[in-house]
């Protein structure tokens, strides 16, 4: 079955000219839960088809009990953030639209760099879903594909 989510409508102070003067910016932001060894943190994250992987704040890894101490820090250059250090750890991700709930394991990058929005990119998320973004109704539709091995 397909999970369906409405875009998050972020209120803004000034009218958005490109959207005919609306005072919102519709964005594909989803509340995604990261489940680690000790607890679960749910964070609103940007679903980004232009992002190569999933990236979250390092403090979230600490909070949920993902031990990054044994991992090697990697210097990666992202178009949006420039050159930053990341460490990767395996977490269980969970998304739900209240009807369907999906949980799967993913290798997620964690960074000490401040993120306005954490990112749900291709590796670890979009690779497991066939996703459409019907613009007229500002929704996201996600269906698991053959690569998905979660529950």
């Amino acid at each position, binding site marked *: 079955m397909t999970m369906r989510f409405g875009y998050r409508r972020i209120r*803004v102070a000034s009218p958005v000219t490109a959207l005919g003067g609306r005072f919102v910016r519709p964005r594909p932001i989803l*509340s995604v839960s990261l489940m680690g060894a000790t607890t679960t*943190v749910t964070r609103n994250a940007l679903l980004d088809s232009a992002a190569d992987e999933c990236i979250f704040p390092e403090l979230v890894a600490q909070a949920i009990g993902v031990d990054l101490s044994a991992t090697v820090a990697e210097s990666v250059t992202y178009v949006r953030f420039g050159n930053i250090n990341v460490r990767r750890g395996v977490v269980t991700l969970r998304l739900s639209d*209240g009807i369907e709930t999906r949980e799967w394991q993913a290798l997620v990058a964690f960074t000490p760099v401040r993120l306005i929005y954490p990112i749900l990119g291709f590796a670890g998320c979009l690779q497991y879903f066939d996703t459409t973004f019907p613009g007229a109704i500002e929704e996201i539709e996600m269906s698991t594909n053959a690569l998905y091995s979660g529950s």
Partner: protein
Amino acid sequence: MNRATPHHSPTVNAKLFNENSGNYPYEEWIKFAGQQIAWNLDGTRILASGVDYPQLFNALNALGIDLSQVVLDYVPTKDEESLI
């Protein structure tokens, strides 16, 4: 394949969250510009805020609210309203 979760945590309905948080009064929302915030699970109330994650986590701890019972978010400043 089913994977056992190490602990129980409530499932957040992301569809409902977006619907509810979108109705949050702007004049209240903008008070948290530039801050990390914690919503309740259905996106109807902001429970705590902080300039950074440590301050936010401390605020939640002081309120006796477990991290698994909130949705973390950030309120963009005016300069951060466009993501391009």
